[in-house]
């Protein structure tokens, strides 16, 4: 029997598994998809907001501030990228400037540092900032991360500490038993004393398995983005319009950890919890609205568009609590923005304030809460590269020319704990296919490496889900 079973291996679920893995607990993490971080964690703005935006006295504010406070050390411990870039909240005209004062007031009450810039001062630092911008509030400690990298690192560390990860294991039903729950999946039934529902857009369906009226419903809210080429040289800071009640944080320009730019998102409610396709109108909205804060937007340097689904609920705040009727069953639901930034705060809160009331948390002296960072060849000096290649010549064969990823890095990410078993899994972890050719050159090579390392035929290597086969058959000739 597991002490804690977590449903959903997104950033929230993996972060909680990591947090709990420091204790003497038997932990299971179940995920319906074929890899970690396949839902909202894979498709968002990738920002560690400092916590100025949520209203006072909300869980969002509390978790965001706590999460942001923990992130830098966490990324250092886990060998993940964490890049402080700063966030410009750009006001156009007096009315919007007044909104900035409200944000600054919240920041003061939460000890979040910021500085004021005039429009011209801001344009001196950001050449593509719109001429209409009159005043900027710069939250200069705001950072960007690779969300899926953090989720993979959390899962890897938790599993190394003894947690069990079950992929392709959608929860099909839950039964209450003496002292716990039986969680049904297609392959097996899992027993657990406590269960945490971190199922993202499906959190309401999971909740209904233990409580007919859980008190919330999730309506996915889609956000669509453009990804611009690294050489587009567009922004250095994250650029936000002034947030509004109706439209949330608005359309942003985000410099990513590896130098691409994200432009987006829009915000559209959708009915289908799986509908993460892009839309003509959604992308048109992004194109039209980025010009509120930015000029010279190089959308012709777009290398990809994508969309993600925010698990938005009827409750404007995060829902983080024990179920009203099901003792030992905890919901982490409605984790829309700033969910990524809040994840470490949520994990600590759920462990210490919720789970601890049902199960004693005793530190495991053998738990290792750090992870050796994967090698990023392109960031090493010539001497370091040569040394590495002498030890393992696979690091001398570059597979992805755009991101300069070597075969050694790919092989390492396949064989790590919770390693990549799919083309997208490799892309998530070490980036071949993230660049301007989008895998045009490297995908066949990555596929070959996966086939060799996993000992499966080429035709069985998948893009992402079990059914997403890339090759149909061997050819006739």
């Amino acid at each position, binding site marked *: 029997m597991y002490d804690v079973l977590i449903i959903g291996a997104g950033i929230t679920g993996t972060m909680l598994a990591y947090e709990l893995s420091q204790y003497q607990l038997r932990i299971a993490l179940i995920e319906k998809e074929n890899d970690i971080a396949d839902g909202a964690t894979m498709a968002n703005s990738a920002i560690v907001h400092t916590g100025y935006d949520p209203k006072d006295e909300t869980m969002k504010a509390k978790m965001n501030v706590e999460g942001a406070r923990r992130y830098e050390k966490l990324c250092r411990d886990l060998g993940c990228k964490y890049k402080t870039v700063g966030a410009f909240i750009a006001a156009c005209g007096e009315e919007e400037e007044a909104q900035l004062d409200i944000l600054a007031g919240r920041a003061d009450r939460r000890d979040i540092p910021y500085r004021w810039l005039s429009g011209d001062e801001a344009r001196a630092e950001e050449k593509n900032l719109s001429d209409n911008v009159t005043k900027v509030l710069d939250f200069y400690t705001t950072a960007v991360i690779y969300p899926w990298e953090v989720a993979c690192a959390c899962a890897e560390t938790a599993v190394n500490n003894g947690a069990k990860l079950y992929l392709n294991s959608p929860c099909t039903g839950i039964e209450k038993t003496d002292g716990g729950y039986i969680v049904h999946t297609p392959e097996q039934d899992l027993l657990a004393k406590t269960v945490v529902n971190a199922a993202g857009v499906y959190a309401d369906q999971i909740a209904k398995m233990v409580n007919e009226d859980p008190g919330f419903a999730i309506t996915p809210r889609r956000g669509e983005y*453009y*990804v611009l080429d690294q*050489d587009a040289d567009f922004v250095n800071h994250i650029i936000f319009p002034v947030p509004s009640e109706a439209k949330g944080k608005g359309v942003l320009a985000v410099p990513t950890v590896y130098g691409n730019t994200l432009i987006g998102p829009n915000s559209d409610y959708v009915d289908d919890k*799986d509908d*993460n*396709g*892009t*839309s*003509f109108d*959604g*992308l048109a909205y992004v194109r039209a609205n980025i010009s509120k804060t930015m000029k010279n937007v190089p959308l*012709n340097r*777009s*290398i*990809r*568009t*994508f969309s993600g689904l925010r698990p938005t609920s009827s409750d404007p705040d995060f829902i983080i609590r024990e179920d009203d009727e099901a003792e030992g069953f905890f919901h982490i639901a409605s984790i829309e923005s700033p969910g990524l930034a809040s994840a470490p705060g949520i994990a600590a809160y759920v462990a210490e304030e919720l789970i601890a009331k049902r199960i004693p948390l005793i530190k495991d002296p053998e738990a290792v809460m750090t992870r050796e960072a994967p090698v990023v*060849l*392109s960031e*090493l000096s*010539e*001497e370091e*590269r*040569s*040394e590495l*290649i*002498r030890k393992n010549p*696979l690091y*001398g*064969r*570059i597979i992805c*020319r755009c991101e*300069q990823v*070597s075969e050694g890095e790919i092989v390492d990410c396949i064989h790590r704990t919770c390693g990549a078993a799919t083309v997208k899994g490799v892309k998530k972890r070490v980036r071949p296919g993230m660049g*301007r*050719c*989008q*895998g*045009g*050159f490297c*995908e*066949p090579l990555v596929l*070959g490496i996966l086939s060799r390392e996993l000992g499966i035929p*080429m035709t069985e290597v*998948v*893009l*992402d*889900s*079990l*059914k*997403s*086969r*890339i*090759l*149909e*058959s*061997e*050819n*006739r*000739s």
Partner: protein
Amino acid sequence: MRNYQAVIIGGGSAGLSAAVTLKKNGIEDIVVIEKDMEPGGILEQCIHNGFGLQTFKEQLSGPAYAERYVRMARELNVDIKLNTMVTKLTADRHISYVNPSEGAVTVSADAVILAVGCYERARGAINITGTRPAGVYTAGQAQRYLNIEGYLVGKKVFILGSGDIGLIMARRMTLEGAEVLGVAEIMPYSNGLPRNIKQCLEDFGIPLYLSHTVTKTYGRDRLEGIDIAQVGPDRNPIEGTTQHFDVDTLLLSVGLIPENHLADEAGIRMDPVTRGPVVDDYYMTSADGIFACGNGLHVHDLVDFVSLQAERAALGAVKYLQREGKARGNTIKVRPGEGVSYTVPACVHPEDPSGNVEFFFRVRKPMDEAVLEIRSGDKVLRTLKKRKLMPSEMERALITEKEIAALREEVTIAVREVQA
């Protein structure tokens, strides 16, 4: 640090041709750096016929054409570093590369020839909405899977873009037993060579939908279908013209882009139209001693011209090395005029011409009857009648050494459509 007389980046058709030319002209201390396990570049996966009519006066397959240059290079003892990726180039001609046997190394060169090739525009660069399942490939990617790796990517196929690789893959996949339901082209005319339209589509009864584009993809795991729609003159889809196709495969043949990353990082000036470096009549870029040729300079439709241009770039490098410096005197710009999208080279040296200069250019739209006019200021250097011009077919025009020496004002190359 090891210094070479010349380093050639890329061992495809351009790089090999440049290397052979350097050797034939007495430049001995050279190396070709190739990322792949074999020399030959993209030709290795182009197993269809039709290469070499200009150069060798016979029809060769891609690998056979490459083999001719590989053999010439071997006979001249050209040093080719295989499995080696150049990671950095600087304007002062330091080249950093990585390979399994030497590790990470930086060398310098008196001259560098960029022969880096191009890459295919991917889905993200065009507006296709919908899901992002397996089953969407660039045409060249599917070609590699089929011709190098030996796998067919799907059974029911639609192709977006009537560029040559897309057309060739339509035929190739049909011959391998796949069903190709159609090819959509956003422009009102095809971007492929006319002979490929005939031999790859018409001969197999594959419909070509001109002024159409793919608007949406369906399927969560593997592609299940696509929508196509007719587009208006603004290239936006026209409402009510959507057609659906159940397919498991979508190939994209929507343009090639010179691989300009190294040049860009070295601060070399780029042409926003070709997206390759700007070069002068010696094929030298804005960086002293760095030359460019092949599809990394501008995308060609015939490999024969790649080889030819690479020879000229190599001759430019030879002159540069022999006189230990660049061409003398001012440059005169050569600009695309009416009806022309770009010209390569983009300037000449009247006080120190490289010789007769052949300009490569493309027209902006198809024209049945047209007049080519080359002017320098008010002076008309040349008027020529032209027939059947297509943006997909590269055009050439010569200006003689004597004419170049007499140039005082900017040159424009223009093509005007005339009524027959």
